[in-house]
């Protein structure tokens, strides 16, 4: 049997379940690091596939399908899950076996989906996840009775504990090789089925004695504080504030190590290579460019550590709940919160997520303000400027001043988004419909899931540095090096290059807001991705000075060559300007028109220019 045939004979197991039922934690437990994360073609929905070895050493493929509440798709995520289970997906093989994951603490919703899956006639098992929490709450679920009532095998798991899926892996041992052809023709769920399922779930819950299950007392107790109308928002602000403090306070040591490594590599290359074009390309282009960006990896890891942690313990849905009233205040629906929250990672998935907003005007407004949320690509730019211009000292009894400024920039982005939404919705105000969210029980974070989540973020960042940023830095080096200066030239060679001429032309436009020609050049490749601007500054300054150590010392260099007004102006620019072309392309596709991306680009550039101009002029006047 060749490798391809062997791969085809490996059973495909699909994990299906509601969002927040611990399905991904179970997937991580089963597959460990043997997993591949990508996007489904056609939608921005994550596809996770991995492999797992059963106790007898047999390999099975595990597919983590997007969370769904029913098999009646209402979102792109649910569409993928349904198509895969119905065997109608041209992207995915029909699974040979389905694992329906239910949160043991929220059986009502989980069983509804499990019944819908059972109706498809596929070989399946029902997994009761988070059984440890259920036991702690005193829930007694009669598992053998549940299995009898459902007519399928039921096993218990604790996905956050090593060995917590032992029963499941033993069961997977017995799965026969691909048998999907034995499935009967899938049926489309009718409304009658939904009603029948509801009654059936009620009956089963009564039978197993779990019909009076709510959130655990401890969660309700914590929620009384966390969701308090006054204390809740204060707690949320404090949590976010501490998060940004940590980004600066904890990252310094690893950043110094990376910076030292980049400097050492630069020094070694300088001595090891003869003075050729290749050496200049490697040191001034590749190392100065990518080294300037990669140094911010620890800060990105810390930021995502907190975000993943808050998500894992169940706090983020509460944050959505608390901010819903604020959204209503500016004329947006609560449904806008999730896309806007997504935009803190990247505006593109945020804009894609607006598909769940039914009101077209709400959706358009959310799309228009999504780029104002501070995406993770801005962090290196903010960190560079803050590190260079804001003193690293404590204020107000021990708070990091740098973290305070970073927090302020994030708040400024949110405030600007709310203001723009308010203005856009002024012509047509409407009644606020509160958001209803499923609030999961609080639980201890899974270190394994946290580690895997962080590793994915590191991979994303390093892939960007090693692909798009690296290629743009090589191009920028070329544009900044050629043509060579004429004989007898006195200025730095870069001023005679193509990039130097472009920078000089752009400086006319950006001069009034305090940008020099180096910044103006960096803004151009920054259109591809915001963090490229940092790498571009590294390359441009490396070629502007005779100092060969510049690859590792961008922060002090800009600190000495820019004034504070210029730095503040650039920060203001990055809060507002739509530097990312990918975002505009996504808006074009989502709105099916060039009109809205053009309006977006125009209003954001105008806002950025105005904000930078005011900031620069006020700072100039203030500094005398």
């Amino acid at each position, binding site marked *: 049997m060749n490798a391809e045939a062997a791969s085809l004979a490996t059973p495909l197991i699909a994990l299906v379940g509601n969002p*927040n039922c611990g399905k991904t934690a179970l997937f991580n437990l089963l597959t460990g690091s043997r997993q591949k994360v990508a996007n489904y073609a056609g939608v921005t*929905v994550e596809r996770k596939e991995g492999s797992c070895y059963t106790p007898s050493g047999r390999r099975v493929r595990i597919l983590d399908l997007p969370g769904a509440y029913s098999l009646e798709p209402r979102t792109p995520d649910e569409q993928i899950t349904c198509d895969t289970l119905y065997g109608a997906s041209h992207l995915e093989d029909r699974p040979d076996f389905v694992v329906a994951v239910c949160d043991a603490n929220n059986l009502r919703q989980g069983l509804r989906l499990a019944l819908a899956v059972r109706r498809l006639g596929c070989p399946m098992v029902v997994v009761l996840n988070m059984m440890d929490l259920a036991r702690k709450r005193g829930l007694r679920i009669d598992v053998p009775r549940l299995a009898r009532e459902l007519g399928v095998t039921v096993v218990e798991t604790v996905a956050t504990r090593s060995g917590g899926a032992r029963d499941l892996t033993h069961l997977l041992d017995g799965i026969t090789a691909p048998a999907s052809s034995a499935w009967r023709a899938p049926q489309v769920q009718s409304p009658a089925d939904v009603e029948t399922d509801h009654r059936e779930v009620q009956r089963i819950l009564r039978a197993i004695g779990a019909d009076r299950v709510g959130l655990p007392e401890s969660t309700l107790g914590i929620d009384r504080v966390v969701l308090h109308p006054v204390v809740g928002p204060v707690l949320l602000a404090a949590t976010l504030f501490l998060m940004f403090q940590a980004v600066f306070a904890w990252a310094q040591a690893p950043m110094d190590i990376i910076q030292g490594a980049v400097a050492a590599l630069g020094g070694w290359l300088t001595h090891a290579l003869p003075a050729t074009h290749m050496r200049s390309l490697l040191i001034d282009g590749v190392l100065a460019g990518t080294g300037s960006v990669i140094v911010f990896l620890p800060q990105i890891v810390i930021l995502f550590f907190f975000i993943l942690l808050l998500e894992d313990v169940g706090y983020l849905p509460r944050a959505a709940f608390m901010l819903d009233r604020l959204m209503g205040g500016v004329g947006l629906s609560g*449904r806008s919160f999730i896309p806007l929250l997504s935009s*803190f990672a990247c505006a593109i998935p945020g804009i894609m997520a607006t598909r769940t907003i039914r009101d077209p005007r709400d959706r358009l407004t959310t799309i228009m303000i999504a780029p104002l949320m501070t995406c993770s690509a801005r962090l290196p730019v903010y960190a560079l400027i803050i590190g260079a211009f804001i003193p690293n000292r404590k204020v107000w009894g021990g708070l990091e001043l740098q973290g305070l400024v970073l927090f302020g920039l994030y708040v400024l982005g949110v405030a600007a988004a709310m203001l723009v939404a308010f203005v856009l919705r002024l012509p047509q105000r409407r009644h606020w419909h509160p958001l209803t969210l499923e609030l999961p029980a609080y639980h201890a974070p899974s270190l394994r899931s946290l580690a895997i989540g962080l590793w994915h973020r590191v991979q994303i960042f390093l892939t960007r540095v090693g692909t798009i940023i690296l290629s743009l830095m090589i191009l920028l080096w070329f544009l900044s090096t050629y043509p060579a200066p004429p004989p007898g030239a006195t200025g730095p060679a870069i001023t005679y290059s193509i990039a130097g001429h472009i920078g000089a032309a752009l400086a006319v436009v950006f001069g009034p807001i305090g940008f020099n020609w180096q910044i103006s050049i960096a803004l151009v490749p920054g259109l591809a991705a915001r963090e490229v601007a940092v790498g571009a500054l590294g390359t441009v300054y490396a070629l502007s000075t005779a100092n060969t150590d510049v690859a590792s010392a961008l922060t002090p260099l800009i600190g000495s060559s820019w004034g504070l007004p210029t730095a503040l102006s650039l920060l203001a620019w990055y809060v507002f300007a739509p530097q990312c072309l990918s975002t505009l392309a996504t808006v074009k596709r989502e709105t099916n028109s060039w009109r809205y991306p053009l309006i977006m680009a125009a209003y954001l550039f105008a806002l950025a220019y105005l904000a930078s101009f005011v900031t620069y002029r006020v700072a100039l006047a203030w500094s005398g």
Partner: protein
Amino acid sequence: MERLKAMSAWMDQLVVGVLVIASAAFAGYRLGPASMRLWIRRQWARVRGKPLPAANVGAGGCDDCPHAATFRKRENS
């Protein structure tokens, strides 16, 4: 010796030139329109005798970016 030096300089320029052109091609591919990327991927799949890839939505170099799922949350209304 002079000839060796000239050849070395020529090789230096050749390698750097190839790297710059390859970078320009890669950046053009990643930042270019999605339809162009799809066309290239389909031609490549044809050459290798693999199934043709379906249209992907990633815009401007965002294909396969798992950023999308970072904060994916579900509303239940």
